[in-house]
């Protein structure tokens, strides 16, 4: 066990932190709320190899581990990135694993095309609430028969949502751009979902930690009844609980990402655990930070509401934590039975 990031990982985090500090200020996040997408941030991410890094060397990528991507996702979450980095990385890896056409993979790696992935099976010919679908070019969907790559241009309807995410309902009536059948394609798709959960857990951790920092800063300076409000137990003890949960979520989400190579047998369970636990920790941090800000927290002008809304919304795109826990519990019992 070594919980310190490697030298390369520290460099990676520092490089992306610099990028996000410049290209994802809260002013930029606000400016992008109408579409949920900041083209300037996306260009910068693509230019920095944000998608390419996720691909293996054989596909012209830089072969980053899922743990490397998780550390970047923490930075993404911390800065509320208005760009589908996680979706693009996960679907690029999936397409490559499925054996997608090399030119398409190359376009995706370079950020010239954006892919995304439908997290839930489609019903009645529609994939609902697909993340990033308003800004992506195509989506990977798993239906009863196969994994299909479906073009998005004329197939999407925007979904107005709490978190200002570029979600869309996607009609699947046009012919797919490509299909991938067989058991292995299904397994690859399941792996992609695990990767999405692990990376989203990391993004939620970054988001939650920043929300907590906002609360701590505010509670340290704001005075009431002759003392900083952070000196009152009613405030301080809540924040201590949030900090503890976020530390736990940090460890768990990093462990989940590490496990994809380090402990494959547990990777899927750990991804689900990390997703559900980080979702709850981020939600609590968002709600308590908002609350600690008093009336200011309720003003759109203050930043904390940006975190509050995304803490709930980024996770809800896939599932509430309760259902994920239920799935974990059922799997554990099935293994024992």
């Amino acid at each position, binding site marked *: 066990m070594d919980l310190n990031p490697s030298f390369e990982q520290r460099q990676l985090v520092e490089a992306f932190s610099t990028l996000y500090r410049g290209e994802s200020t809260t002013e930029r996040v606000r400016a992008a709320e109408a579409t949920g997408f900041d083209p300037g941030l996306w260009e910068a991410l693509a230019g920095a190899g944000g998608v390419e890094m996720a691909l293996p060397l054989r596909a012209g990528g830089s072969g980053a581990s899922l743990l490397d991507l998780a550390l970047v996702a923490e930075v993404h979450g911390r800065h509320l990135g208005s760009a589908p980095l996680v979706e693009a990385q996960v679907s690029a890896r999936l397409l490559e694993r499925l054996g997608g056409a090399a030119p398409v993979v190359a376009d995706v790696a370079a950020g010239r095309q954006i892919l995304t992935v439908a*997290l*839930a099976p489609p*019903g009645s010919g529609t994939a*609902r*609430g697909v993340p990033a679908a308003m800004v992506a070019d195509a989506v990977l969907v798993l239906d009863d028969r196969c994994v299909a790559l479906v073009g998005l241009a004329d197939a999407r309807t925007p*979904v*107005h*949502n*709490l*978190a200002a995410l570029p979600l869309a*309902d996607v009609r699947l009536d046009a012919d797919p751009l490509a299909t991938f059948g067989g058991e292995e394609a299904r397994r690859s798709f399941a792996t992609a979902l695990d990767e999405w959960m692990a990376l989203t857990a990391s993004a939620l951790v970054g988001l939650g930690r920043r929300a907590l920092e906002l609360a701590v800063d505010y509670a340290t300076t704001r*005075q*009431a*009844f002759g003392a900083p409000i952070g000196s*009152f137990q*009613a*405030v301080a003890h809540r924040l201590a609980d949030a900090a503890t949960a976020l530390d736990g979520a940090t460890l768990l989400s990093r462990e989940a990402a590490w496990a994809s190579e380090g402990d494959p047998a547990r990777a899927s369970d750990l991804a689900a655990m990390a997703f559900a636990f980080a979702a709850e920790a981020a*939600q609590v941090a968002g*709600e308590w930070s*908002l*609350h600690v800000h*008093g*009336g200011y*927290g*309720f*003003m*759109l*002008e203050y930043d904390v*509401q940006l975190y*509050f*809304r995304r803490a*709930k*919304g980024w996770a*809800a*795109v*896939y*599932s*509430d*934590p*309760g*259902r994920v826990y239920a799935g974990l519990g059922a799997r554990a019992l099935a293994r024992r039975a």
Partner: protein
Amino acid sequence: MEFGLGGGHDALVDDVRRFLGEHLTPELLARVRRGGTYHDWDFHRALVAKGWMAPGWPVELGGQGRPPLEVLAIAEELQRAGAPMLGLGTTMLVASVLRHLGTAAQKEAVVRPALAGEILIALGFSEPESGSDVAAAQTRAVRDGDEWVVNGQKMFTTNAHEADYAFLLARTDPTLPKHRGLTTFLVPLRQEGVEIRPITTLSGERTNITFYADARVPDALRIGEVNGGWEVMTVGLTYERTSAAGGDSIRLLEAMEDWAVGGTPHGRSADHDERVHEAFGRAATENEVSVLLSRRSAWLDSIGELPGVEGSMAKLFSSEAITRQSAQFIDLLGPEGIRTEEDRGAPARGEVEWAYRFAQGTTIYGGTSEIQRTIIAQRGLGLPRG
């Protein structure tokens, strides 16, 4: 001991519902939600015409002389329907203070037109540097002959842009101890020295910052004694704390039940799902408790007792309940739960997503949950002060 509210209560509720059917149109609700101003002059005047601006006040003062439980019944129905009542609420809070502490001239010049639906009054307690600790107000008022000159800022002056006066807490003697150098005024808002800047909130409600730069207020619009403002505030804050969120919770559960029985085209199936059933049963129970806690306050009022701790309990419980419930209902709806009301596919017409944002404010305004818990611990349980 009797929990029944009597046949008159049912008839009254029916009457309120008929009124709402006529006046609280879907267009009005949509306009209010879109604009964020939870006051509508047409609806307000319709309420006044019905006598429901101040149903509990004596007839001779412009009320209907109704007992507190009937007053509550009317308020419960209006809140449950989501009627725009913020302007009425603040105006009546101030009217109640003036009824007890105002001069005859103030009653004539302010209370009478307020009850006639002619004017609106906003609250100016909070400041950029003071919220829960309201007595720390720094806005200054300095005497100048028959007038006072006001300088400072007030936060969250909701409906200032519709209102005629702000009920303003100002420091009139900075040399006295914190609670002793304060005075309250009714500051006319439509004057040059007042600037009103809108604030948009998480739930879309519009409120305001008001800036006072040499704003003038006649001494005749001072309430209470000079430097006696804290006594006035004590009365005012007691009225403010009676605001409970039980009605909003009931409306939220109804929206969820509509969703559950409506076929749930895209959400999770509510049939045979114990998690949904448990959440619904729990919410219904909490809502019953919220209603009972509020009714207890009204009943205490009706027998001449001041519901201090009891009002805090009703406010604390109902606001924390809607905060829990709205978060849990979003979870039950799954990915569909975060669709906003602008989305045509939103379950429960987007009410749940909106309620999750709205609920966060209920644990803040009218006294935070922390303030209520301190009141309950110290005044209710007799625990020692820290």
